[in-house]
């Protein structure tokens, strides 16, 4: 909605009806309508906590439908139009002929055709063409990312894990840092041993693998704790919306205005 309002406001010469629409979309009425719809749908989603019901399923379907429609329109207007259609048919661009307007660019036909191949998965007998696109995409992306993954992710993480060796040599009295590096080193190594299935987990290897299991449990526990924090944060966000934006701003404040005679 804000997007639409900004676009409407961005027009410098609005016709009277366009100005009315801009006022409507940026005005209090639209905000109120939006707040009431959002509050209603929030309560509908919360109703699942009590029991599964038809209203919840309606809300769920609304969410999926609106998200899919919104994303589709977003991709079309933000990408398909400026990046493909206007490049291929530049005279359709409203700014055609100006320095900011599009110019003919036939190179976009290549990704266009490759993209069209994916849609051919729906056509029996021609679905195999989509593999060309996927092969191009996966091959290209692997080529771009492989070296970067090694130099940017794998090696720095590896060096950080074996930090214990420089600490042992240089840190001396910094016991906390040494302990931290040691825990990390032993933890990472033991988890790797746990996932090494070519050797039977018995004796010394079994003991190390057991430490790996405990390390994993600590990691899962930390992740679980953070997940709870995240979910509670989402609940707080919704409660703040219901209590302040809806109950306070839309009901209590408005009733107060009515009873005060304003």
């Amino acid at each position, binding site marked *: 909605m*804000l*997007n639409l309002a*900004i*676009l409407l406001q*961005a027009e410098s010469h609005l016709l009277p009806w366009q100005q009315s629409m801009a006022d409507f979309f940026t005005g209090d009425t639209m905000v109120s309508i939006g707040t009431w719809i959002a509050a209603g749908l929030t309560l509908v989603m919360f109703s699942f*906590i*009590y029991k599964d019901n038809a209203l919840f399923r309606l809300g769920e379907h609304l969410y999926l439908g609106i*998200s899919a429609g*919104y*994303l589709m329109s*977003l*991709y079309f207007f*933000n*990408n398909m139009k400026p990046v493909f259609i206007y490049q291929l048919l530049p005279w359709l661009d409203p700014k055609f002929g100006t320095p*900011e307007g599009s110019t003919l660019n036939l190179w976009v036909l290549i990704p266009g055709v490759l993209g069209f191949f994916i849609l051919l998965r729906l056509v029996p007998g021609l679905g195999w063409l989509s593999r060309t696109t996927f092969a191009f995409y996966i091959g290209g*992306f692997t080529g*771009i*990312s492989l070296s*970067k*993954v090694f*130099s*940017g*992710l794998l090696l*720095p*993480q590896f*060096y*950080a894990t074996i930090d214990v060796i420089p600490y042992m040599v240089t840190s001396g009295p910094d016991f906390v840092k040494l302990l931290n590096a040691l825990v*990390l080193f032993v933890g990472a190594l033991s988890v790797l041993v746990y996932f090494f299935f070519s050797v039977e987990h018995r004796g010394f290897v079994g003991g190390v693998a057991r430490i790996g299991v405990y390390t994993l449990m600590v*990691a899962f526990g*930390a*992740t679980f704790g*953070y*997940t*709870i*924090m*995240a979910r*509670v*944060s*989402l*609940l*707080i*966000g*919704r*409660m*703040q919306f219901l*209590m302040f934006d809806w109950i306070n701003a839309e009901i209590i404040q408005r009733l107060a205005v009515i009873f005060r005679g304003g």
Partner: protein
Amino acid sequence: MENEAKRNFLELFLLLDRRIIYTLVALAVAIPLIWPIGLPIRITPEVQSVFDKIENLPEGSNIMMSADFDPASQPELYPMMKAVMRHIARKKHKLAITVLWPNGPNLVAQCIEEVKEEYPNWRSGDDFVFLGYQVGGTIVIIGVGNSFVETFPKDYYGNATSTMPVIKNFNRLGQADYMIMFEAGNSGDWWIVYGTEVHDVEVGGGVTAVVAPQYYPYLQAKQLNGIIGGLKGAAEYEMLMEHPDMAVAAMDSQSMVHALLFVAIVLANIFAFALAIQKRNAARREK
């Protein structure tokens, strides 16, 4: 008889209707929102690092920001994004903002409007450029490494980026003095690769609590200079800014729910243990 009553109580507690727990959670959230308790918020070193970096950069430094989230993560990431954006505006740094998630741009636009209300002289084109969303993920990151103007010929508001004053000295990721990313997923991995390793730009992260454990190894490896993790991190940043806002207001509720869940988990474990002992003793007596 007494033993029977005890056992019933233990079983009743363990079979407590989940809706009662939901009601308690709802109350634990709602009551502190109405009557704040004002529990202390301790500043962690990883949040302090992000704050210090932005604070100590000379005025007019270039900062890159990527807001890679959507409304599903708004309660956590929006408050920290607003606090950081406010900090950047206050320090008069130059800012370029990108979005890699299609549902994210509206949130950034809303955040910009709110910060502009506090800093009316903070202007699009002069002080910041909101490049908006572009499809492609990693390809966009590579693109902004080469040129903002080529990757985003127009900004979110439809203005040509090539003529903007802010772009003159800040047209690619490598020209940034610092980068801050707000992440609800994996896009941050690629910002770290291209920011830290390829373009040698120090990177800080504001992340949801769910993905925070996945980003801590980067902090340990010094690939991130700091992490603002979840709502707690956002509240810490607001405290550092001496401008308590949405996150600080929510922290009492967060703490109350955590306390409630902690008590529930401990009690449930004690009761389950006690019930198991009772059952074992009863079985022995029957023998």
